[in-house]
């Protein structure tokens, strides 16, 4: 195993010291809490800050519906937060594992697998059967994701059982484009259900319940635990497989388990909220620009900022149009994140040339 001594980063931007890390995490936490409060405060149902505080404190309010409204907003906010956290965290993990700055949770095609599963169940009209507020859509999405992950792993498994990044990405692309074709096939067959498939694929946290939160947890927690447990190994993997092996990292094992857990966590987010791109790609890079590439700071900060930004994006998605309709949240994340990231990239391009 790995000798537990601090490893000096060989990349630009040394890992932040303990006090800097603490202040960065504190800042991110404050941002997350502010986002959460905004998310509770804003919505279509008229509710004042005082009323919402009263409901949260368990007090009496005149409007009996308000407690439901707060519950709906809390659920939605928690879901957006968890999905944002998962996407950002797994994005950081994938970029390290595949040693590719363009890697994101969806690189290996599991999101297409999940989308395929969901499309099939929407097409077949299986969406009415509910299990604890969950329809069959997320369940079949997970089945689709599992199937595509198994395919990718089977395709990229070499003789030595070593999973090489380039092969993984290639296998992911093959499986992904094949499943995209199947989705297009179903879409062209489904004239009347087309709109619900399209709306679902665009991504949203609308009309989700506690069931969805519970659904996400068993996938998110292992991914989170494994990534945090192996944060040093993730740092070392950046040096290359051979070097990491020499430094005592069990590359095959680390890569396999992190891959499986992160893929399933990302797939679970697709299963409940549709495909929300951009967050998983950009948040980790954004944080690298602020705190350097060390995973000790990258992982927790990705988690917190991913959650906070997704919550804010969801608030915008649900209140920005005056006509009462909601925008797909993936559209918001990309519209907000794209230009901001481009600006940051432009400003600090020298510092990220290390990739």
């Amino acid at each position: 195993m790995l000798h537990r001594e601090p490893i000096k980063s060989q990349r630009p931007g040394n890992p932040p010291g303990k006090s800097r890390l603490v202040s960065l995490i504190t800042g991110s936490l404050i941002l997350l809490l502010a986002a959460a409060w905004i998310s509770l405060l804003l919505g279509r149902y008229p509710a004042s800050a005082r009323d919402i505080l009263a409901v949260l404190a368990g007090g009496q309010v005149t409007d009996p519906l308000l407690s439901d409204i707060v519950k709906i907003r809390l659920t939605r906010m928690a879901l957006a937060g968890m999905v944002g956290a998962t996407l950002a965290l797994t994005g950081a993990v994938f970029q390290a594992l595949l040693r590719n700055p363009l890697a994101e949770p969806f690189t290996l095609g599991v999101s297409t697998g999940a989308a395929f599963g969901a499309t099939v169940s929407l097409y077949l009209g299986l969406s009415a059967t509910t299990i604890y507020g969950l329809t069959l859509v997320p369940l079949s999405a997970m089945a689709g994701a599992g199937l595509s992950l198994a395919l990718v792993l089977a395709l990229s498994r070499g003789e030595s059982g070593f999973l090489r990044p380039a092969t993984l990405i290639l296998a992911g692309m093959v499986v992904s484009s094949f499943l995209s074709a199947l989705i297009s096939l179903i879409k062209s067959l489904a004239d009347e259900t087309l709109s619900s498939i399209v709306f679902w694929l665009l991504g949203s946290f609308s009309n989700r319940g506690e069931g969805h939160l519970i659904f996400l947890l068993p996938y998110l927690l292992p991914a989170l635990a494994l990534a945090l447990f192996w944060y040093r190994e993730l740092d070392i993997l950046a040096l290359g497989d051979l070097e990491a092996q020499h430094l005592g990292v069990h590359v095959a094992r680390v890569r396999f388990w992190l891959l499986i857990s992160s893929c399933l966590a990302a797939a679970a987010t697709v299963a409940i909220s549709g495909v929300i791109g951009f967050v998983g790609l950009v948040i980790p890079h954004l944080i690298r620009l602020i705190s350097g590439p060390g995973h000790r700071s990258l992982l927790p900060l990705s988690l917190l900022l991913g959650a906070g930004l997704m919550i804010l994006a969801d608030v915008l998605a649900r209140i920005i149009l005056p006509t009462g309709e909601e925008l797909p949240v993936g559209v918001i994340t990309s519209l907000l994140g794209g230009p901001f990231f481009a600006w940051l990239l432009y400003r600090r391009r020298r510092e990220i040339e290390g990739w």
Partner: protein
Amino acid sequence: MIASMRYLLPALLVLLLTAGSIQAQGSEITDDRGKIIRLMAPPQRIISLYGAMTEIVFALGAGDRVVGVTAHESWPPEVRTLPRVGTHLNPNLEIILSLRPDLVLQGSVARGGQRAVAELEARGIPVAVFNPQSVPQVLETIVRVGILVGKEDVARRLTTQMNQRLQRLEATLRGIRSRPRVFFEVSYPTLLAAGKRHLVDDLITRAGGENVIKAPRKFLRVDIELLLALDPDVYIVQRGPMNRRPGQISQRPYFSRLRAIRDGRVYIVDEFLFSRPGPRVIEALEELARILHPECFTENP
């Protein structure tokens, strides 16, 4: 000079009369794209790319001239054996051309179907596109289709009857004191509602109700929070291809808080009847009026 005049006048008259008779045999209308559709003779091989158009042609008694319909059509029952030419949004050009139509009817098309329309027109096949969004527009569409297929008299009779039923309904509803606020569910669990641009919006208004959705869209994605804020008096669910299994509505999360659920005012209606701007639109309207104002129909059930 005088002699030649004697022959010229009748000759001119004959010319005028034959010109008139050509005009009488042919037909001309303006479709909803603003395009003038001119036919020299009544069409004998009609293809309908939209269910409501098929229903109109059959209601006009020209169903025997329909040679092709789209994939999922089932009304009237005779269409089930007709050749299929793809879907409304994605018609199959080759099949359509092979059926040698002399008229193609299409409902409103966004993107997908437009290319096919252009391709057909480029090959000299007349295509008429209709996009009725209200009951009067449906009536007017029926008349225009009637003129096109040479059944104007039947169309006039049919629309007169429909107009009479419309007026009878208006008379019945004259005394209503309130307009229930209505939510029309297009699909679930992706909760879509009918907006201002949906035919159903006009049906709701004419049936003495008010659509709670004011957005100028055909479909609107709605969150449960907005639904609770709107709290409609009546909740209508369409069942059909867009909403295959709406399930037990009162069992859905938070739906028990809705006034409509508490008052037992949830109704399931047929998507083919309500979302199709065809001759049966009056039936949908009458059914909706009974739902919204049962008090007006007590003597005459």
